[in-house]
């Protein structure tokens, strides 16, 4: 099974990278872009066949390691 995980900053938390990228896009002439936010994207293979167990495992990985839940939130998809 393949897990695709998105980890993003909670809304309201300062995103210095997003800010800098937005500014850079603007200077490059992309004036239509706004609210740039930057996060992490992770992919991994999971040796687990039941959907439920896989979900529980990915969730645990996010909580324990992949996301810093004090400032970040996460979501994931599972595909076979």
């Amino acid at each position: 099974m393949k897990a695709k995980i998105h980890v993003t900053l909670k809304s309201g938390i300062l995103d210095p990278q997003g800010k800098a990228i937005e500014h850079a896009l603007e200077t490059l002439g992309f004036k239509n872009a706004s609210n740039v936010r930057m996060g992490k994207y992770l992919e991994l293979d999971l040796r687990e066949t039941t959907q439920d167990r896989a979900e529980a495992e990915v969730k645990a990985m996010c909580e324990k390691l992949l996301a810093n839940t004090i400032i970040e939130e996460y979501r994931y998809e599972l595909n076979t």
Partner: protein
Amino acid sequence: MKDSQVITKDIIAQHGLADDEYKKVIEILGREPNFTELGIFSVMWSEHCSYKSSRVHLKKLPTTGPRVVQGPGENAGAVDIGDGLCAVFKMESHNHPSFIEPYQGAATGVGGILRDIFTMGARPIALLDSLRFGLLDRPKNRHLLKGVVSGISAYGNCMGVPTVGGEIAFNEIYSNNPLVNVFCLGIARKDRLFKGTAAGVGNPVLYVGSKTGRDGIHGATMASDSFDEASESKRPTVQVGDPFTEKLLLEACLELMETDLLVGIQDMGAAGLTSSSCEMASRAGNGLELDLTHVPRREPGMTPYELMLSESQERMLMVAKQGKEDEVLRICRKWDLDAAVVGRVTGDGILRVKDQGKVVAEIPAKALAEDGPKYERPNAPPAYQEYLQALNFDALKEPKDYTATLLELLDAPTIASKRWVYQQYDHMVRTNSMVRPGSDAAVLRIKGTNKALAITADCNGRYCVLHPYMGGMIAVAEAARNLVCSGAEPIGLTDCLNFGNPERPEVMWQFILSVEGIADACQAFNVPVVSGNVSFYNETNGLNIYPTPIIGMVGLIEEADKAMTQWFKRAGDAIVLLGATREDVGGTEYLRVVHHREQGEPPYLNLDTEKTLHACTLKLIREGLVQSAHDCSDGGLAVALAECCVSVPTQPLGAVVRLTGYTIRRDALLFGESQSRVVLSVKADAADKVLTIAKAMGVPAAKIGTVGGERLVIDVEASKQASACRVDAELKTLLDRWGNSLERALNQA
């Protein structure tokens, strides 16, 4: 929460204001405060901002001296170093934020102390970090250490300010209350120091830096509260640092300060816009009118309460000369910083805050900033103090294998090399680092002069819990000794006093005695305290940390090429021990590691003896007689000798040492932590001269060995009390145990 909120008893309590304090608010205002005003009083009168429990005691610290250019009270202190320059420095804690989110907490701690330095008009040239964690066998503590170090690394490195040293100690007592203290040193022209003053009625007030978001609202009150499970819910207050913006802010501020545009400047640290505005007004005896409508914001719908209390990072408040605001704004734009005129200085002494044309707060600035509560809180020794100090050393067995014991001590994370940490810090940027991390103190040359400055941070919390007065004195003595061993004369200090809950009499007792110890040592060494910080409420679930008053000290080396390092230089050099060794085992690392006790009286310190040792060491170094100098601290003489062998960044050198004529126990001799001792190496033919000079100055001195070989061998001669014993270890083994210990501890599964 709405601004129209009715003030109830609950709300007052949530704001941490005691009944008496609230009465005083009403007295000052002549009426009940509104919600915004309540928020403002609550942060300004928090322990963190008002120093209400510590102020009366801090008065004991000596703060004056011929070199003092700026003592406590401004953003940082400053001492004269000649050549028209001064050293500007201060230390700050960021303990609670670092426990909640180690990376961001530590990073924003670095950001905050840097701003304190460059608001003074000084360019920051070095950082030190003082850290305390619980033992590394707990995953949580490893996580905290890694997070804190990467946060400091990320922020300091990006700023281009080298982190050139610091200290770390580990003790279970810090498990739920780690300490993160950061010291910063800057250099400014003596005649161009800036202050946080809102002088000149009518002058414009400008906001410069990042936009304001809802970050860290009530950070100051959080730093003034103990931790418990419920603190988890305070988590949304985490602030995120943006070192890139801070770098721009630094350059913009220094550029502005080159011009003649500014009257005063202050960073928005704890309590943000509130503390910066009312403190600047109060210092000048003026009032200040703010119009929040113009404050740059990151989020829509922010209330005046939120705008006034936000602790968004990387922001400054400036007072410019009238008519110069456009020029200030132009320079800010050059550095891509948000900036706006947000108010003006008034003559009525009132901090008046407006939003959308409406007055939302009106408070006398001076009363708010200075008439906060002051407490002389009750103090008493803890019930367990006698037990702590009672140590029956005779009941403890001597180690069987002294080599194994030395290796065990070198492997203890508190003693082991901190290379894993400082290698992640850029410690060379700005190209001043003459002595990098790894020696007793870091040494920085001062460009454009022949001088150098040495800096160090020190404290032994265990000594302080066993005997707060002696512990406070020793912290100062050790810092000074580290500077002296680097060839520097101590010229000023800053402190960061980390203590538990001041509402507990035993914590106040520890605090008062530690401060007195620090004060007496400063007096004896003629080193003034020019800045500092108090961090109370380091208490979690009722458990208070060891009293941990960290001392950051600055020393001057008149001729930079006289800077000294701690490691042996050449085979054949003689090893000389300055100072006397007593049976000082109480509170030692040896006692903890080998006998699992943290007990006893800490080592005894005599200030005169220590002072003479400093004078002697400095004289020997200045006369060019010394090849290396290292003080004995944690782990005692044996550990100091091992460090002299292996702490060199290049090829280690062995030594053969023979200790004769001692009447104390062999473990006390090798691992006891007697104060006022320094291990020197000197050229073989200079040894006699060194001994003669020491003797003439009244410092006990003995040649104890010779540098060279592939091993460290320490022979203790047989005496009436005991047979001979020997420490004998290959350099390879010493290096591995000492050098890789931290990495091993951090990589354990």
